[in-house]
């Protein structure tokens, strides 16, 4: 069943057309990976889904509901969480305050909190510390934890491995596999090793257009296509 559908989405930023024609179908459950070179339009796609850039024309539907023209706040309240490329945490607030912001009632569900602590033990350790004092990996953990502190239907994650050490990337992958058991993840990633270890379905965006869409298994098996679209082979 399709959870999120983008149809002929076009986005202009100022006078520049960044997305020309983006159409993808994100099925419910698992990890959908959006791959592409630098500047291909991956981040703009996620920001357009969240309403941070308004796509025009084209449509974005979530569970059949048209998101086009909705305010970012209303999109977030539909159960879509966004973890931006720069992590999007509030450095001046403590880890606890960052987390509490993402709760609807300003209180934590103890079971959910235990789940978060199990996924990211470092957050429990630095619970009352200001977020700016965390390491890069811990900040990324906080950003992801904030997105899942309450059940969400869809999480948009933008390049979570950027600048992280390999050991932390492994931990992050394990956490994403666990999260994907109950939530759909739309992951934008340049680290192909990381992406292939997680994704079931994928699409490649190039110059603001979807150049390829299919299963990760097929894409991994086709090294010529990888070379052509991403300039790499596995």
């Amino acid at each position: 069943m399709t959870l999120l559908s983008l149809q002929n989405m076009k986005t202009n930023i100022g006078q520049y057309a960044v997305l020309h024609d983006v159409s993808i179908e994100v099925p419910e459950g698992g990890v959908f990976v959006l791959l592409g070179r630098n500047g291909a339009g991956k981040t703009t796609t996620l920001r357009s889904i969240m309403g941070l850039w308004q796509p025009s024309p084209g449509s974005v539907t979530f569970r059949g509901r048209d998101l086009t023209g909705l305010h970012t706040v209303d999109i977030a309240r539909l159960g879509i969480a966004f973890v931006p490329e720069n992590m999007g945490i509030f450095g001046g607030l403590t880890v606890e305050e960052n987390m509490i912001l993402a709760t609807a009632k300003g209180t934590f569900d103890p079971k959910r909190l235990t789940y978060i602590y199990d996924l990211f033990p470092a957050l429990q350790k630095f619970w009352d510390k200001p977020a700016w004092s965390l390491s890069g990996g811990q900040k990324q953990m906080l950003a992801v934890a904030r997105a899942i502190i309450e059940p969400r239907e869809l999480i948009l994650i933008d390049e979570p491995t950027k600048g992280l050490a390999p050991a932390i990337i492994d931990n992050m992958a394990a956490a994403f596999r666990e999260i994907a058991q109950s939530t759909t993840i739309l992951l934008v990633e340049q680290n192909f090793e990381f992406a292939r270890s997680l994704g079931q379905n994928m699409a490649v965006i190039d110059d603001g257009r979807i150049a390829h869409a299919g299963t990760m298994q097929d894409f991994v098996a086709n090294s010529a296509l990888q070379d052509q679209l991403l300039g790499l082979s596995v």
Partner: protein
Amino acid sequence: MTQVTNGTRIVKAIVLLIGALLLFAPFLFQDVRSIEVAARICIFVVLVASYDLLIGYTGIVSFAHTMFFGFGAYGAAIALRQMGPGWDAVALGALAGVLVSIVVAIAIGLLSLRVKAIFFAMITLAVASVVMVLASQLSQLTGGEDGITYKTPEVFKTAYKLVTDADGKVVKVFGVKLNGKLAAYYFVFATSLILFIALLRIVASPFGTVLKAIRENEARAEAIGYRVVAYRTAVFVIAAVIASLAGTVYAIWLKYTGPDTALNFSIMIDILLMVVIGGMGTMWGAVNGAVLMVLAQYYLRDLMGVAAEATANIPVLPYLLDPHRWLFWLGIIFILLVYFFPKGLAGTIMAKGART
């Protein structure tokens, strides 16, 4: 919860000490001027703290805070003059001030908080200027430039005896008469304390956390589901209501309300200086800032007079320390404070140990 550092503990200890001094001020400093200073500190702590809620916690720069203070003061003044010195007039005046403040704050907020900070600041400046001109011109209602003098409830009259002995004379405790002046001071102290505690509760609540998030990054706050304009308008209204109530209390204390005491732009500058000196986004800084500025305004001239006399035999120095140059020295002190305490007194001290 905000991280508690040693610096935070020091700042809270200083604020507690100041609170204790203000609580016992009538008994510790038994002259009229000192009580005037203590009452002014109480009211400015609330006024500066409510402004800190705007500028320090939400990043809203407004030049209309004095206007809301004026609404509260004029509300009480007009009601007391029209209805006589009763509690019903105080309540109605306070309510009128609060209602006008809410309406004006919502109107400014909804119309202007979507624009960039600098334009919002200019709009508040323009609205405050219009209100000041109106207060001067609607002289039948506001008393114009002369302002309004009125009587306050009986219990606040200096001649009122709170406790009398067998001979009907007012009782003294530690040499202080338990009279209406004392009641008026404790009315100012108690209402200021309640309003300050209310502000502390607001910033410590989840609502306060959202405000801090908005101050840090509006787009991120929206991306996790917070309507920034609604929150900014709400906080603008809350700050306006608190400022209005502070204005009502000040009007009762002074028994006079005029443009100079309630609407003058110099009050707005004082508030800005106090919040910067104390430390933005700390709430505790409002106490330090208000105490320092009010004490400087009242006592710096005296201090300079003493210093000028003491240095009479030294060339140039008595000339520089002439009490008439107190504003120059106040400016120097302000520059030094900003240089050595870039986050304000409370902000800089509270930041100590924050890395651990």
